């Protein structure tokens, strides 16, 4: 028998760590979503899909910029020492994933702005003729288009992986201590972005393509989630205890019903039937995917903070 008592009662730390509330899961979700949108934008540019009438590229980079800004606002709201936020950009700490993320986020903006300039929406073309002329000149240069496409693909991939590595680098929380979190959050980000484009796309061909892609991303998520749990269950006692948080512990229902059931399995079934032309495409599946993506971050962030090396 072990009985443990402590006189410590620090806010946000005791009785169990709860330093990150809604802001960080929202930031990680929006970061992953933007990462996926960038990857899709890069792919569309490389495949010349942006030249189709009603292509999602007319709004995708702009939406990415708006969502990224909303994510960074959530991150800012989480900071406890807000007037000093600029300190993030006065140094580069090579061992700190958060420092890497700060600089990656800074590089993401120009990449998205480049994509926006290439695929300038009609309203902006009319309002800013000089921008339209610049866009036309840029579009005429194949190398520039390819450079912007690859920048979006690469930075999207880095941003998506970073959202997972941010947590997995914090070894003091056994639930997060898994190298699978980076690829898992990347797959989830790609899936959420595909679902969003599927949901909003005016071109039915874009919607169909993204629904098919989303099915692949959702299957990858299932494999990665399985690997994540297997990795924890085959590690040390504290990691097995951490896995128990979603395997019978307080986060079991949210994880299995919300994330796996409603967020992955059900939309995968619905979208598989839809792309097989057995049922019509509806907003239900993509909305479930988006909700599942957010809930995945909420569960992982909350459960991870509860997991610990020391006495429970």
């Amino acid at each position, binding site marked *: *028998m*072990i*009985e*443990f*008592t*402590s*006189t*410590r*009662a*620090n*806010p*946000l*730390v*005791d009785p169990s*760590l709860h*330093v*990150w509330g809604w802001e960080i899961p929202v930031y990680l979700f929006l970061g992953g979503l933007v990462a996926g949108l960038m990857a899709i934008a890069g792919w569309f540019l490389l495949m010349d899909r942006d030249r189709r009438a009603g292509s999602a590229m007319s709004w995708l980079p702009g939406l990415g910029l708006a969502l990224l800004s909303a994510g960074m606002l959530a991150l800012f709201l*989480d*900071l*406890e*020492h*807000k007037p*000093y*936020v600029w*300190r*993030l950009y*006065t*140094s580069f*700490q090579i*061992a*700190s*994933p*958060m*420092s890497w*993320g*700060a600089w990656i986020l800074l590089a993401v903006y120009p990449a998205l702005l480049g994509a926006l300039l290439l695929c300038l929406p009609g309203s902006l073309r009319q309002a800013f003729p000089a921008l339209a002329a610049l866009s036309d000149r840029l579009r005429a240069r194949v190398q520039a288009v390819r450079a912007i496409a690859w920048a979006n693909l690469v930075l999207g991939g880095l941003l998506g992986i970073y959202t997972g590595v941010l947590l997995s*680098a*914090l*070894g*003091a*929380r056994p639930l997060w201590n898994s190298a699978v979190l980076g690829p898992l959050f990347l797959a989830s980000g790609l899936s959420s972005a595909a679902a969003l484009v599927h949901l909003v796309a005016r071109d039915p061909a874009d919607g169909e393509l993204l629904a098919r892609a989303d099915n692949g991303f959702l299957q990858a998520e299932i494999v990665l989630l399985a690997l994540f749990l297997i990795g924890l269950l085959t590690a*040390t006692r504290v990691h097995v205890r951490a896995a128990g948080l979603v395997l019978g512990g307080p986060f079991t229902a949210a994880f299995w019903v919300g994330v796996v059931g409603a967020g992955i399995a059900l939309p995968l079934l619905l979208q598989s039937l839809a792309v097989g032309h057995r049922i019509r495409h509806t907003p239900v599946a993509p909305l479930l995917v988006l909700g599942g993506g957010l809930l995945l971050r909420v569960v992982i962030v909350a459960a991870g*903070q509860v997991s*610990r*090396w*020391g*006495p429970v």
Partner: protein
Amino acid sequence: MARFGMVVDTVRCVGCADCVVACMTENEVPEGRARDWIATEATGSFPDTRLEIRSERCNHCDQPPCVSCCPTGASHVEPFGRLVQITPELCIGCKACLASCPYDARFIHPRGYADKCTFCVHRVKDGLAPACVAVCPARCMHFGDLDDPHSEVSRLLASRRGHALLPEAGTGPRIFFLT
């Protein structure tokens, strides 16, 4: 260069919390926060039981995860005594260091920056012991250079049985508890 550490004799410690009060007074720790605390751990089954009372704080680890995760360099290892310290003017309050510490030794100061035990570096630089060590009525706490084989802490560690907290976390804690 010194590598400061601490040795706490749990056989002598009575859990009076004088160390906690001294720390709060010396460092003006805000109300409701604690840089050090008393942990009590009872193990075994009757009649084979054991009680360990520990005065705990930041372990000033040799491989501090709070330093490596800090995005601004606010958490750093000070050359003097290789102590883990925080520069409030660099801290953005992201709380990554709180999440990275397996000992949960850090907290957020009401002014917004991360805070924790400094081993009373301002006193140590003046040749004094940390406040918690200086006031201990049971004289169970000892402070010194772990790299100096003739220091009191090194001699205690060489002559007595003891343990660090969560050595399996791999951070190299520099506080040892004699049993």
